[in-house]
């Protein structure tokens, strides 16, 4: 009996996941305010169902009351967040709050299955993070001078990155020296520095008028990359670099910066790989080999990717069902390889839908950046969108053998205090930018409206009514 309930729940989870994903895109495409509102509410129902069914399976299989209690607290916090955040910030994006809560819940679910202790820890930090970052949009709206602090962001960022080299504070993990330990909490400074980096680049680009300005900016940015390479954190170095190149391309509108930048990056990696293949890049080389043929190196560098592919393949499109697979045997399945764990037990179809949800989050970031007229906010939003989508790409591609694995986390889903906090900060900043640009847009609309009315009165014509409703549409 339990078997049948669990099997049916598994299929329903996938079904509602697909429906949720469809909604993500149809909400973005929708122009009608009422329809959007209705769809957003349905989305919350879907989140609730997916989460409920997943915990139902785990409860039936593991028969633990602790799971039920944990479930209750989670869904309460998530629904509370989805409803309250929007009522405080009327101009924020509800689609984004829904997705934030959804991604966190998927993460908690898989972590509960893998390691309840970690799941609780993640939940506590994420909830604290949600509360703290809830103030960020407010701060952003008030703090008009944020764009003038470019030099400060740059210097601060590099100093923070360098903390990992302080003896006793920084330490090495998984072959990269990019961690610090404060008490019992371990952090990756890079996760927070990437936020400073985006602000730094945006601020410098807003002010840059000459090639010389761009050059100075490039030198300091190269400093970030250099420190990351010395930390042997290649994944982060790639994310920073691509973000930098994309932002310069946006600021200059010159394709040459995009093509040249990417070409230069590829060349640099190839050259560095060639020059330092036995020293600084030794562990990168192992990863490239493991990517080409993980099964030939299954006892060494290819172990993780082999296990990940076994998980995907054995789980199949429909998955083994939560707790029924061997997801806990995938190395670092609670962090970098959580996507493989999700695919194995919840199904590859679920995983594919999750990839689309991530893509939809990127597109909603982009939409906010597109609408924004203030260049600093526009560049920042675009920079954060790049970081989010590129980090996800490195993670998803790495665990599926699409590209060599670089050891980065999947935003909001992977376990990791720094990772989840920094992603929540990014999401909150994006919401802040959304609020700012929406308010500005509404203000503009009103002014336009007034000007038109004035003109209409002067010419004795009628007042164009249909304009009045449009301002509302801007709110997402």
């Amino acid at each position, binding site marked *: 009996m339990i078997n049948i309930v669990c099997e049916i729940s598994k299929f329903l989870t996938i079904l509602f996941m697909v429906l949720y994903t469809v909604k993500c895109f149809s909400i973005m495409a929708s122009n009608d305010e009422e329809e959007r509102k209705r769809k957003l509410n349905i989305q919350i129902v879907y989140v609730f169902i997916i989460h409920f069914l997943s915990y139902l399976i785990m409860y039936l299989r593991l028969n633990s009351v602790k799971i039920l209690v944990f479930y209750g607290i989670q869904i309460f916090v998530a629904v509370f967040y989805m409803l309250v955040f929007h009522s405080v910030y009327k101009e924020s994006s509800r689609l984004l709050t829904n997705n934030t809560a959804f991604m966190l819940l998927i993460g908690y679910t898989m972590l509960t299955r893998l390691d309840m202790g970690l799941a609780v820890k993640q939940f506590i930090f994420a909830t604290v993070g949600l509360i703290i970052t809830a103030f960020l949009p407010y701060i952003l709206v008030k703090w008009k001078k944020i764009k003038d602090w470019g030099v400060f962001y740059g210097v601060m960022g590099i100093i923070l990155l360098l903390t990992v080299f302080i003896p006793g504070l920084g330490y090495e993990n998984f072959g990269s020296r990019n961690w610090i330990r404060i008490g019992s909490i371990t952090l990756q400074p890079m996760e927070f520095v990437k936020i400073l980096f985006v602000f730094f680049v945006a601020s410098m680009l807003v002010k840059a008028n000459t090639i010389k300005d761009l050059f100075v900016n490039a030198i300091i940015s190269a400093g970030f990359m250099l420190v990351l390479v010395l930390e042997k954190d290649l994944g982060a170095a790639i994310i920073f670099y691509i973000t930098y190149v*994309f932002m310069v391309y946006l600021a200059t509108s010159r394709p040459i910066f995009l093509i040249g930048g990417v070409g230069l990056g590829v060349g640099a990696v190839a050259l560095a790989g060639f020059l330092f293949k036995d020293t600084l890049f030794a562990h990168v080389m192992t990863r490239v080999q493991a990517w080409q043929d993980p099964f030939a190196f299954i006892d060494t560098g290819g172990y993780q990717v082999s296990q990940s592919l076994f*998980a995907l393949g054995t789980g*199949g499109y429909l998955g083994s069902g939560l707790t029924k697979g061997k997801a806990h045997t995938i190395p670092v399945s609670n962090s970098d390889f959580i996507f493989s764990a999700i695919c194995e037990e919840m199904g590859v179809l679920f995983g594919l839908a999750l990839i689309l949800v991530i893509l939809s989050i990127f597109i909603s970031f982009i939409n906010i950046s597109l609408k924004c007229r203030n260049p600093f906010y526009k560049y920042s939003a675009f920079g954060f969108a790049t970081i989010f989508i590129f980090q996800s790409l490195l993670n998803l591609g790495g665990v599926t053998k699409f590209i060599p694995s670089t050891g980065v986390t999947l935003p909001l889903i992977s376990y990791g205090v720094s990772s989840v906090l920094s992603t929540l900060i990014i999401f909150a900043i994006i919401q802040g930018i959304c609020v700012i640009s929406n308010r500005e847009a509404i203000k503009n609309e009103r002014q336009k409206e007034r000007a038109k009315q004035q*003109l209409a009165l002067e010419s004795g014509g009628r007042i164009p009514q249909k304009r009045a409703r449009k301002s509302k549409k801007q709110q997402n």
Partner: protein
Amino acid sequence: MSPEEEFLKKEQEKAKNNKIKNRPIIVITYLMVFVYVCLIGYVIYFMQFKAETTIANSRNIRQDSFAETVERGDIITSDGVVIATSSTDEDGNTTRSYPYDNLFAHVVGYDSYGKSGLELQGNFYMLRSHINIFERVVKEIQEEKNRGDNLITTLDYDLQKAAYDALSGCNGAVIVMEPDTGKILVMISKPDFNPNEIDAVWEYLQTEEGASSTILLNRATQGLYAPGSTFKVVTTLEYIRENYNYDKYSYICEGSEIFTGVQIECSSGKVHGELDLADSLAYSCNCSYANIGVELDYASYKDTAEDLLFNKELPYVGSYNSSSFYIDGDSRRDELPQTAIGQGDTMITPLHNALIFSAIANGGVLMEPYLMHSIENDDGATVKKFSPKKYGELMTSDEAAILTDYMKGVCDYGTAAGYFWDASYDVAGKTGTAEYDNEGNCNSWFVGFSNPDNPDIVVSVIVEDYTSNGVSGSWVAKQIFDAYYN
């Protein structure tokens, strides 16, 4: 223009500017969407075309969890004999049994204490169930195990039995293959064990006596032996490659001669007289081959050996050892005479010898050897079929034809003629007597194939300690060929 008009115009300008400003964002967005579509396409491609072979990897521990819902399928020979089967008791405990005890010990392997042989190689397939969906649902609800798929091997029961009986009490190994497909029909290694009593075997291996035992070693694929005179085939190939007028070769054997300070004698002190290359091989004249050996180009000799997969990985899925050949450009001259006749440091497995002769039989082309023929569900419908795969060309078809021709002489009038002169079929092959110590104790080899014009099967036999038990490789091979043709 009124200030209002001016304002509206400015606004319009701003919106237009924003649109231009946004162009790079649109470009990057399309770019990233494209990359993600590729990622999704790749995952689907992996699931459709790569997943099955990936998860069949014997290192995938998830296979064992299938055993909770599936009763391991049978292993069946190509002629329909069940050689491994499972039964499940009322509590759902499955036991594995092997109806023919020791007969298929090494090739089928065992299912506990870590797996081996076909039990390991085919583990994944036997733990999958492809019976019809209704039966599966019914069993699911009754919480009974489904019958797993059966593994149909390329093994031939009658031939395996004949070879097993021929080898009787001797230690050694036999491997029989089809040269044109790579199907392995027989694989035997002795001493062996009874897989039904694997617990006792394991206990025995823990004892002091058992610790030095090699009963679990599959000599057919892992046993490294001196190739003895079977290696003269390699030397012949090298000689042909270096000398276009190889058919003019001539040597007068006086039973013993000193080459580069090393004394070489023909077996039993026989004096062969005047020989050409074909006769040298047929009579397996050691002096003639030492004479050839010292003239050979070392580096080229090594290349030819490596063309034939010495010092290389073999295209075989199970566990095996690589053969070794040590001569290269830096070797001392006095190593050559011994190496040319298959003594010295050269080592080969019966499997590898079978592969070399299989390539000769198949016009120089080696087919990958394989043991798994197909997978059938419990109702006998084929679920998956493994097809023959070409490995590559080890030598030209002309070279293969010359070697075949010479090796026919071995069985027509040469060293193996005593066994095959009255056979109803033709055989091309090579005998070998390889010393394994300094007291003249020898292992006996025979490697060859029947019906040389259109080869049927390749047989590779090694009998250990021929000197004391008197069973020769050629005799065992004869019994196998007889069983095949009768």
